[in-house]
């Protein structure tokens, strides 16, 4: 398979001074709009082969970033280059090539898989340029790669559990042999035992197919396990970036420290003395969070 995007020494993904604003009506029945700054002056780069995590809470801009990277939306200002090529304002053909190179796995496999299509067709759908038979055989291969039996191809999404559906999403993402896998909270909707299976699978396929991984999550402990580097975001801005172990053990930004303190791991909870009071930060309700006062 020829590679339309050349391999380069420069970072594979290069985000420079990107802003994204949305204008949103203030409240129903009220006039005027306000501008929401989803991303403010974001600059970061991801080298080829890296497992890059983006962590933050709802509204921090992590999903906006992912939509921009996957070419689903364009930045309001700034530049996003993938393999040296500007992706904003590309022709439909360029965007198609980009999307083939950058595939996305979403959080909720219930809503991201077409309920009326058989699993084999869902997986084969991106393979437009191949013959039907070749596409089907590649889909079968992908099913096997994600740990599903070949018979799974004949069934419909609703016949699978959440974890199996996420395997199907991963198979569909991988079938066009992308260079980058973008994962948006891919394990947040899963049960604990299944989450571990899917995380193992993601780590396996990233290694097996030499992928660059961009993994967006609210959960720093998940990112710590699967990623090398983490960018912590808050309110549309990058607050900290570095090797994930360093960030986890010695967070520099106040926000990162708060995030880690608020979500202790089971190990650290059990290691703390019996009946250790619940982490207490109850009285610091942040006025910025209060939509009603805007």
């Amino acid at each position: 398979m020829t590679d339309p995007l050349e391999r380069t020494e420069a970072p594979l993904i290069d985000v420079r001074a990107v802003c994204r604003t949305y204008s949103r009506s203030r409240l129903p029945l009220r006039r005027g709009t306000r501008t929401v700054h989803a991303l403010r002056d974001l600059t970061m780069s991801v080298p080829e082969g890296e497992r890059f995590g983006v962590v933050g809470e709802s509204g921090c801009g992590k999903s906006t970033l992912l939509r921009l990277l996957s070419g689903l939306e364009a930045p309001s200002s700034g530049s996003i280059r993938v393999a040296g090529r500007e992706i904003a304002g590309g022709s439909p053909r360029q965007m198609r090539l980009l999307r083939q190179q950058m595939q996305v796995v979403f959080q909720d496999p219930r809503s991201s898989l077409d309920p009326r299509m058989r699993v084999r067709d869902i997986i084969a759908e991106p393979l437009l340029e191949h013959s039907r038979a070749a596409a089907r055989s590649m889909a079968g291969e992908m099913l096997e790669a994600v740990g599903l039996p070949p018979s799974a191809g004949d069934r419909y999404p609703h016949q699978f559990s959440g974890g199996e559906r996420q395997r199907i999403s991963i198979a569909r993402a991988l079938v066009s042999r992308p260079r980058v896998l973008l994962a948006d909270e891919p394990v947040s909707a899963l049960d604990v035992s299944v989450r571990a299976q899917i995380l193992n699978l993601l780590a396996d396929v990233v290694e097996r197919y030499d992928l660059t991984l961009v993994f967006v999550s609210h959960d720093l402990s998940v990112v710590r396990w699967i990623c090398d580097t983490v960018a912590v975001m808050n309110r549309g801005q990058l607050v900290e970036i570095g090797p994930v172990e360093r960030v986890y053990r010695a967070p520099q930004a106040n926000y990162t420290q708060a995030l880690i303190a608020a979500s202790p791991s089971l190990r650290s909870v059990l290691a703390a003395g019996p009946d250790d009071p619940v982490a207490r930060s109850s009285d610091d309700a942040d006025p910025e969070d209060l939509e009603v006062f805007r």
Partner: protein
Amino acid sequence: MTGAETMLRVEGLDVLGAGATLVRGMELALTAGERVALIGESGCGKSLSALALLGLLPEGLTASGSIRLVGVEHDLVGAGERQMSAIRGRRIAMVFQEPMTALNPTMRIGRQVAEAFRIHGRVRGRRAAQAAAIELLERVRLPEPGRIAGAYPHELSGGQRQRVVLAIALSNRPAVLVCDEPTTALDVTVQAQMLGLITDSVTETNAALLFITHDLAVAATACRRVLVMYGGRVVEAGPVRVVLSRPRHPYTLGLVAASDLEPLASRPGRRTRLTTIAGTVPAFGDRATGCAFRTRCPSASSVCETDPAWSQTGDRGVACWHPVRAASDD
């Protein structure tokens, strides 16, 4: 009220429906001020058990067994809707996962909280109820409670909405508070605040708390005791730190191992694989006979085709033919 008073006693609770037993033989006693976690993965029956306690089972499902609540003469199992609506929200209250669906979107917050008082006749008069509502909003640590009372649910953040739901649940000082994944939909920093608020509130009112969660760290943070459910049955119970540090049931052991994302010391060498439980949680209809976990259990044998009996030792209990033996036991 003494600290050891039993607020809720559940004996042999079954939930039946669609030709299957969805929850089987649940036993549970909650004392005043006690905080108990009910953990397990989706489909294990934990939410159904909670709905059965409140008499809110979906159409077509029935409960059998016994549910006794302090200060209530009759059994909650088999009680009519009229009896239950006098109890629900007054003696036993519930906080659900999704605060937006628990609130009426067309009603100001203050009126919704006041309604909870007025329905059960605790506060008479509109103005008095409104004042009590604002006081309660302040108790759940909402800033500027007067302004929040005048707001509609969509104007609040998810964390604020969940505080309002908690305020409504606490409005009549219930003997038992049931929380079903109350922090799952919240951001982690808001989640920590909410957990602190819930535990403080039950301590303050000396209520018993049944806290349903899939998150083991949350269970260990918020509660003292834990019940682990699988396939509609409580498979292990005991003090939360002991059970999660030294599980006896292979399912609990698997859950704890799968939750552990801490990379081992071998980093930065090759990434360690996470421990998983093989397979997935079976649907209600596909549960195995005997021990429901045997289809996924590494130590299953033919004896597991028979339902294991509950075996209680001191403050812990387990239902398993092949309980895990830790080196630190005996």
